């Protein structure tokens, strides 16, 4: 196996909200008014190989978008680090974050919010490469036109404003903006979720074509299991800020090891399998402010035993390049197996 291009090592991200002055005063009497900490990511480690598309899947609020932003260098991790070819993607100083690399680019979910409404599309595309001298000054115009054509738009569209485009076209522009920086890694944060299904397919096909032509490495964040299966080589399942299962896509879909993964698959409606009932996962996703003890999934898990309330499961080897964080794969769920 080649050396991984992107390394996510033991990354945690906590968001802290300090109480205001009034809250602190009231808190003196009532005993409240303490800082609220949200554990968005807890100890996530992942390696992404060159040319690989890694899917990140989970329910809303499981930290998958936070992970994307840490990888892109928009958030600084609270613990751990993210490196691209051995170099950190961002540096924190005095509470501010400094993105160091242009090699990780992001594509956002909502193409109606991710393009500056008062900037011509060509200017939006040219700004980054021009500032970072990625394209020689004399070639910018020609390269922008070529890029627009590569994502299936006309080169002449460079003079138009975003409001003159449809959602699908805007998402193509967003992809072109990311590609203009000639990145090594793309982070797609629910990049097709807000598009119509027919447009989704077009944009996904475009992404697959580009991936084949340019050898892109990508983090594909999504809650849509069928899209992920179509696009990704490996899939990481996240629950409440933790990685619970990581496996090659075909194996994961054929044989999910973690009860949460199975539950996710069971909740997907499908056509043509004759399945008429699909099971929603019991209960609500717990609050990341106050996560459950032991395995975070135990209150909703049909297979949970006494050990699950006490021990936090570690990622363990589950054969054939798979890992899973479940006590069922690590001895058992009874109290006897509780680690000393």
């Amino acid at each position, binding site marked *: 196996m080649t050396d991984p291009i992107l390394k996510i090592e033991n990354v945690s991200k906590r968001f802290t909200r300090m109480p205001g002055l009034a809250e602190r005063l009231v808190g003196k009497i009532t005993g409240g008014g303490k800082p609220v900490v949200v554990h968005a990511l807890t100890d996530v480690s992942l390696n992404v190989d060159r040319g690989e598309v890694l899917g990140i899947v989970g329910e809303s609020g499981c930290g998958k978008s936070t992970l994307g932003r840490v990888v892109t*260098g*928009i958030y600084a991790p609270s613990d751990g680090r993210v490196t691209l070819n051995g170099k950190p993607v961002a540096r924190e100083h005095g509470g501010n974050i400094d*993105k160091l690399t242009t090699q990780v680019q992001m594509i956002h979910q909502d193409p109606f919010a991710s393009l500056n409404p008062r900037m011509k599309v060509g200017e939006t595309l040219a700004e980054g490469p021009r500032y970072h001298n990625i394209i020689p000054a004399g070639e910018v115009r020609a390269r922008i036109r070529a890029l627009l054509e590569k994502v299936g738009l006309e080169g002449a569209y460079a003079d138009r404003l975003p409001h003159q485009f449809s959602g699908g076209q805007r998402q193509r522009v967003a992809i072109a903006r990311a590609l203009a920086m000639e990145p090594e890694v793309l982070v797609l944060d629910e990049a097709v979720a807000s598009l119509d299904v027919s447009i989704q*397919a077009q944009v996904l096909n475009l992404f697959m074509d580009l991936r084949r032509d340019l050898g892109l490495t990508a983090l594909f964040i999504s809650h849509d299991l069928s899209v992920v299966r179509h696009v990704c080589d490996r899939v990481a399942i996240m629950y409440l800020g933790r990685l619970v299962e990581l496996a090659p896509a075909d194996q994961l879909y054929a044989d999910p090891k973690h009860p949460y993964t199975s539950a996710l698959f069971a909740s997907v409606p499908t056509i043509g399998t004759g399945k008429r009932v699909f099971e929603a996962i019991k209960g609500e996703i717990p609050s990341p402010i106050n996560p459950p003890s032991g395995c975070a999934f135990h209150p909703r898990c049909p297979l949970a035993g006494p050990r699950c309330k006490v021990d936090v499961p570690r990622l363990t080897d589950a054969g054939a390049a798979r890992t899973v964080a479940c006590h069922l794969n690590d001895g058992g769920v009874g109290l006897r197996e509780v680690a000393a």
Partner: protein
Amino acid sequence: MTDTLTPDSKIIAVPSAPPAETRAMRLRNFWSDYRQSWVAIAALIVILALLLGSFFAPFWVPQDPYDLAKLDWLDAFLPPGTEGTGGYAHLLGTDNAGRDMLSAIFYGLRTSFVIGISAGALALAVGITIGLTAAYFGGRIEALLMRIVDLQLSMPAILLALVMVAVLGQGIPQIIFALVVAQYAYFARTTHGAASVERRKDYIEAARSTPLPTWRIMFKHLLPNVLPPLIVVATVQVASAISLEATLSFLGVGLPLTEPSLGTLISNGFKYIHAGRYWLSIYPGIFLMITVVAINLVGDQVRNVLDPRNSR
């Protein structure tokens, strides 16, 4: 790949107008909305006339009120329409020094415009910088800057301007500085409000993840998207700067009578108003009122046109 794309480009209509026209088209739309109100048209014409009239005053008014050698004591207190020693009729009368009121008013108006517009523009620049900085960085910087702005907005602007002029002394630059200090807070508050909303949108995050430098994101991405409400505030604040300056001059801390602004003229004439010499105060007062009201009317209509809820 081309196959999958054809339906997209065919079904979804892209406006067929040549792209270069978009800005001109927006301007034309703006104008066609603006002219819906004849009051606003009249106000705009009045402002343009006053601007042209005052800036070209040396070429058409009968007298240079700054040139003391041209003033004649024999002409003092001539009522409107009387012919003086200069051999021409003083349409709006003369003051205690024999100054032609019409000339003095247009020279004064020029001073008022210069002060109002430059104070407005400077306050806009300062307010934008503070508002954008607060909205972009958030946290402690935001709290500090916006609390200062709040503190200032809770005090009457005229009080602050009075204190500033008392400290700095008289003169046009001093007055402009005092007005900027008194008025930047309105721009800072408006900018901050609009920018806090825009700040959270994905296109700002996209610019940060490119990455682009902070100043560039603030002024090239954030600023153009908060500009419309600022245009409205700017118009109104110019009018307010003009009347603030008139107030300062009326109170005697503004400009001296040797380089009169409208406020100085009103203040000067005020002494004689009970002696029946009404024209010394009333005419500059009327011009001040017309100017301020006209600017406010234009500002109102601009707000109406830019308000998306009123779009036809």
